[in-house]
């Protein structure tokens, strides 16, 4: 198990995280990093896809409560992730594998640490049961098509 290194996809809102530094520079320090204009723009399918493509965890860094430039995008993603966790759990993806942090860090210097911290937790949790998602693909499709087959 010692060589197992979890892969964490990190979404971060551009309005609160790392906007003062060059994105390319910060990119080199953060693996699988996706700066996004608003965390409210993160779709459930984006999260599902990440797990499907092999991510072990998802970290979403949003604006502090009440600070969303697009009014309520951070609350929207929180709602979405909380609801999605129930479904993910039914697929064997533990709730620890999705995490939301609402804070602000214009320099982005805390992001690598937050990713590292999540990786360590996931390492303790162990690798994801790879086939869990495959068996439940029909459910995922159902979510993608909004319940329509």
């Amino acid at each position, binding site marked *: 198990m010692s060589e197992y290194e979890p892969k964490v996809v990190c979404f971060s809102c551009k309005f609160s995280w790392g906007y003062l530094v060059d994105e390319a520079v910060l990119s080199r320090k953060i693996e*699988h990093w996706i700066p996004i204009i608003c965390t409210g723009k993160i779709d459930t399918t984006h999260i599902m896809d990440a797990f499907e493509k092999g991510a072990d965890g998802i970290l979403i860094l949003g604006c502090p409560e*009440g600070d969303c430039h*697009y009014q309520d995008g951070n609350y*929207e993603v929180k709602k979405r992730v909380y609801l999605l966790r129930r479904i993910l759990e039914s697929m064997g993806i533990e709730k620890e594998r999705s995490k939301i942090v609402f804070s602000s860090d214009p320099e982005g210097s805390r992001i690598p640490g937050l990713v590292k911290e999540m990786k360590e937790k996931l390492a303790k949790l162990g690798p994801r049961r790879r086939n869990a998602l495959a068996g439940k693909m029909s459910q995922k499709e159902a979510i993608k*098509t909004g319940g329509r087959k």
Partner: protein
Amino acid sequence: MWKTEATGIAHTEMAVRQCLPPCQIKCPINEDIQRTNVLISLLPDDPDLAKDGIIQISEYLYDKNPFFNICGYICGICELECNYLKKGGAIKRRLLKRFLSDVYTKHLRELGKFEIVKNKEKVAVIGGGPGGLMCAYHLSKRGYNVTIIEASNQLGGALWLVPDYRLPKDVLQTTVENLVRIAGIAVRYNIRLESGDLTLEKLKKEGFKAVFLATGLPYPRVLTFEGQSVEGQDLSGVMYGLNYLYEVSHGNIAPDYFKDKKVIVTGGGNVAFDVARSVKRQGGEVTIVCLECEDKDCKDGIPADEEEIRGAWEEGIRIVYSRGVRKIVGQNGKFKGINCPTCVSVFDEDGFNPKFDCTDCITLVGDILIITIGQAPDRPLLQKEDLLDERGRLDIDHLTLQSLSKPWVFIGGDVRKVGFMIEAMGEGLVAAESIDRYLRGVDMKEGRRRDYEAYEIPIRRDYKPEPEVPWMPPEDRMHFQLFEKGFTLKEAIEEGKRCVTCGPCLSCKACVSIGFQKSLSPVEVDVARCSGCGHCVYVCNYYSAHLISSGGKIVSATDMFRCKSCGMCVVACPSEARRMVDDNTAERIATVYSSLV
């Protein structure tokens, strides 16, 4: 760049300019308030690191408004229309600008001259107040050779009459002297039109192809009652507010000049409050008497700013509302008091036309009377230059400010219509555009009349209350130093964040300019997929997503002026009918996901 279904609003340039945030519509020069609020909110929290950003934002503002730093002290007109007013208090835009001013005013001295090729005609601007300077600045930037003709020995006009506790003199001095230096404007001081041999005709002979006349309102208005001048205005102890403020500004009045004196100030405007509060600072016991009533929302409400009234009240100034002055009482040539009937109505359909009930009359006793009921233009000058019509009004086109008798003369600022500093500046801007059009020989009016449209406040879960602005306690502020504390960097960032950016993205583009967005991605609706369920309408905080009837079915549509390209409707859509054009988020996600394997 917009490619959306034809709602008929996203096409023309005219329409683009017509939608603005309410604050920017209120501002006579339509300052880019939203954009700069956003940029302030994204400053680093380290003051040294923030300095560059502050200067960048300031330079952006300075380009259009070379007085923005002064606005930061005395103009908050935009706050009156802020959508946030009803949700916890207007965004403190004035203090945000004062925050920028604290850094930028000093920086002005280091600023180099604009590199402008001055290959256009000579234009004269008569009067170096805010209106004249604004006009001169913008004409100069367009390559005209501008000369300001100033009657006094300093630029700034009536701004010099604003007491120091509201606008420090060094801020004003630094601003005006650098403005003419940076923009390369020539100034002739101590020259008055129509006194000596200077006339408009003479200027024309000198080679000036156009003139902007912004001579302001240099004389105080005398006190009248029912159309007649009230007697006794020549008594010892009676003075005019305008003259008093001039003397205060020039340091000609001793700090305790009014000690143990009862001073009555007549007038309900901001200038009357400037007078009253200055007198109080010089030891007087002050009573303000005004025609208007206390309720500002009423048609006859007091015109002074709420902050002024609050400040005066805190400082122990008594305000007597709804009273006029019928008689000035004197004894042995000295002022003794005034006789004040109730004012039952100030304005009627024809405008200012006060009515009184003389059966209800009080007498106020005092040692000094300061009349501050408005100002008057230099009428003889306007008459001699033949700029008035047969009814004695300015004979000009009020859209272009062009004189109807002398088409090369343009008139604006307080001399046309009394107003706030920024209104005079707005007219300076209009005059600059008019003069440019006149000298280029193009249509004077085309495309200039605009009806702006604003939107309501976006929906959000929590609106934040306005920050407390600390004033020195009244007992500690009986001097002419600033009594209002400006924002710290941290407070400015917080206040910038509070702005909910109600205006359309097209008028702002802050996020594009700093590289957050590649472009403003419009949202496109695939009508074939859309089932008209309305999820997008529910999730949109900007009233942009809405349902329309199209081809016999209900589908959703996007109002591109309201859309902020946040993508929340795209995410909420259960049938993937909405997508963002020109958006690279999906590619970015795909790239990252492909690296997972």
